[in-house]
């Protein structure tokens, strides 16, 4: 984590905006924000954000690198797309928020306790095993995310729902043992490997050792 972060700091010493442009998905749009605040006003979760999108954009321009990348706010986006629809400058705000979150993750700057980041990782790890999401395992992992005792409590609370789902065949307890996979699991892993290679190459192009 630290290494890449230090390298990026060194490379974009003066302009966090340029760093965002080069490394964050859709980051080249940030400069086009005109600070009208429609995004912040449109966000259904806006009041729970420490820094609503408008502020995030201003902070990027003001070079507040740590505050943005360590912010919980970029993880608050639920992809409702209200801001994208309303932005008079047509900025893909949702994508930028996810791009910032993704970049923060790469740099290892995500706050340790952020639940969204945790869940995202859990979802990814679960999916990677068989190429399909194992809902039973994912559900259980979620229940026990905050410790064993908490997990039991949540499980008991949802007991009735679980039984009903089993009765109607919506949940199969056998999934706890291995679970079913996509038809061509080896092929799936090959695809992912190739994608990772492409992504690494792209990052290397913009990365600390590249260009400049």
């Amino acid at each position, binding site marked *: 984590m630290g290494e890449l972060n230090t390298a990026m700091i060194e490379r974009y010493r003066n302009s966090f905006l340029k760093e965002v442009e080069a490394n964050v998905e859709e980051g080249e749009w940030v400069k086009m924000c*005109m600070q009208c605040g429609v995004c912040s006003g449109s966000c259904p979760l806006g009041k729970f954000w420490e820094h609503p999108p408008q502020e995030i954009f201003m902070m990027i321009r*003001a070079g507040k690198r740590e505050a943005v990348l360590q912010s919980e706010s970029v993880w608050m986006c639920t992809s409702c797309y209200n801001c994208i629809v309303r932005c008079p400058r047509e900025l893909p705000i949702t994508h930028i928020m996810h791009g910032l979150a993704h970049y923060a993750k790469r740099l290892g700057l995500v706050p340790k306790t952020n639940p969204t980041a945790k869940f995202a990782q859990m979802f990814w790890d679960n999916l990677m095993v068989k190429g399909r999401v194992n809902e039973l395992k994912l559900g259980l992992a979620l229940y026990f995310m905050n410790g064993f005792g908490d997990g039991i409590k949540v499980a008991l609370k949802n007991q009735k729902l679980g039984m009903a789902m089993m009765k109607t065949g919506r949940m199969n307890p056998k999934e706890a043992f291995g679970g079913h996979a996509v038809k061509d699991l080896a092929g799936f892993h090959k695809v992912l490997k190739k994608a990772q290679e492409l992504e690494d190459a792209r990052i290397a192009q913009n990365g600390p050792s590249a260009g400049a």
Partner: protein
Amino acid sequence: MAAEKKLAGYICTGCGIGERLDAKQLQAVATREGKLPSVKQHAMLCGAEGVKLIQDDIDAGNATHIMIAACSRRSKVEAFSFPTVAMSRANLREGVIWSRPAGDEHQETTQEMADDYIRMAAAEIKFMTVPESSGEQELNKTLLVVGGGMTGMTAAVEAAKAGYPVHLVCDEPVLGGVWKDLYKRVPFRAAAFDVPNGNDVDLPQPEDPGLDDLIERVMANGRITVHLNAKITKTSGAPGRFSADLSMESGRTLTENFGAIVQATDYKPYDANQLPEFAYGTTPDVLTNFEFERLAKQANGAVIKRPSDGREVKAVAFIQCAGQRSSKAGHLPYCSGFCCTESIKQAMYFKAQNPGCDATILFDDLRTPGAAGEDFYRSGQQAMVTFTKGQASAVVADGGNLRVKFKDLILNEDTEMVCDLVVLATGQVPNTGPDPYAQLAVDEAPTEEEKAAARAALAVAPPSILNLDYRQGTDLPHLKHGFVDSHFICFPYETRRTGIYAAGPVRRPMDLKQAMDDAVGATMKAIQSLENAARGSAAHPRVGDLSYPRFRKEGCTQCKRCTVECPFGAINEDEQRYPQFNESRCRRCGTCMGACPVRVISFDNYSVDTVGQQLKAVDVPDEFSEKPRILCLACENDAYPALDMAAQSGEHITPFVRVIPVRCLGSVSLSWVTDALNSGYDGIVLMGCRRDDDYQCHFVRGSAMAAERLSKVGDTLTQLNLETERVAVHEVAITDLKRAPAILNEMAETITRIGMSPFKF
């Protein structure tokens, strides 16, 4: 003018008039009471047949003065156009049947209303004559354009293109004025629309200012005579016959005659010495936008270096609204409207040379007017100019650097930035002459003390530009902040001196594109004005009116009220101190007529009599009839149309009101008010336009003058032992469709409450 008056009346029974009213009764009133020897009816007077009926009478010499009782005088003006005869109109459609509910219970009062309008129109026509021009007019097609900047040059080129010769007067040795330091200009064009691959394709970029090209076109044009280093030492006359003395560089004076004048003297850059908080004057690295433009022009595309040490600029801050939009002493209270796009353009100079240079614009509200405006903003953003919503409070020179302290308005924190150069986006100060009324204040101050105070105010006034030889001062009157007064919404180029048109930043702050567009507009108005003057007809808003104020010299007491109160400075004084009406300077508002205490001023088709006889012609029932009479004098520009439109949209008014349109509330003679009270009217409502700084009066000061004069009416009422509520003055806008009728109905209720006037005969 016909030697013998032949009166004729025509009553239209179309549009429901015949069904709602008793036409026989109307005919009888017109004949017996109106004393019209010939009265004809027609079911559709405005149709070809009806018009022919009237025209035939006129052609046969049987009608020289006609009364048409049909729709409002504002309707069917093309059909009822008989320029060779005098004409009055009784408004039976909008004024009566459309303003009143149908039904038997209303019939009596509605019919009385119509009868009265016939009596009034019949009385009015007897006191009208066909207006004809005085015959003193001449056509002078030459225009005088004052100011050699981009605005003035554009005006000259446009006039020349339209075939009118121009004299262009510039007080500097070269043309270009304040715009001549432009390195590039803010683009004039918008981005292409509906481009398939997004909005930000082909965004407008800073462009060549086009100054050299314009100068070349001016110099090469055979219709344009350029006078450099020249000043105007005297301007006299009126539209069509202005005479100006031009003091030339050689010391010789050239006197030329002009049809109309365009003043395009642009602006003066704001004096940034009033901004010590931004370290202006302490370090040469803090510049105004005007000074920076010169620096960029000198660099001419090469690296821009700091004035202090010649170091290349790597970081620059633009402080918007410097000394503007602020109530502090010495600051401009207004937004100059050009500085946001100007700063974007200047920031792009840096980005064009070195994309790595940090260029930050500190703005509060970014305002980017014009076709390119928003696209140009995006253009700057694409070039990576940083836009920070923040309010700068101070600039501190710190070693070789400048620290700009500001409050970030989005993040709500006090912060600062370090840079090499600071550009202050300062504003425009209009380059106008002194306010003529500041000068009059000196001449007319009653005490020595007041004279001294007025003189002190005048001492800081700028030197005169036009040197008008007018009774009311040397230059165009101001509205506020030194900008020339013009009707902002409807008639932006018309100033308060007829035939002299303001173009560009003398009128309001604006950028180059707007100033050049303005020049085109003002030039068109100037051409219109000189052509109108040649016909002896009025300029706006009474375009085409041939009447002009005549005055009975024997009756004049030389009180000078007319010469002082004319909103357009049209009236001079001759050697014997009698008023000297310059008819083509006159806008025909009648403010002089309303001012004259001895009633010696009148127009051929509008006078103290034409209105006075109307209000006397109304049948006033006795005190016990429960039928009060309310007189409404309504401004023909806004209030009267509002009442017409209210009627069209089905608003009802009290049947006791009788509405008489007036040219402007300023033309209202106080004798009409006293006459009405003496004739037994129970209430009087005067409707004029808004009269404060954001006035809507078509004659600028008419409505305000009327309000001032009428403020003393309360005393008259008290003397007559009448309630002061009986006379009310209201500001009515053309959009007041509900309010205008409501005002009249309220007066009717007031009368019910306070009782009938005791002055009935």
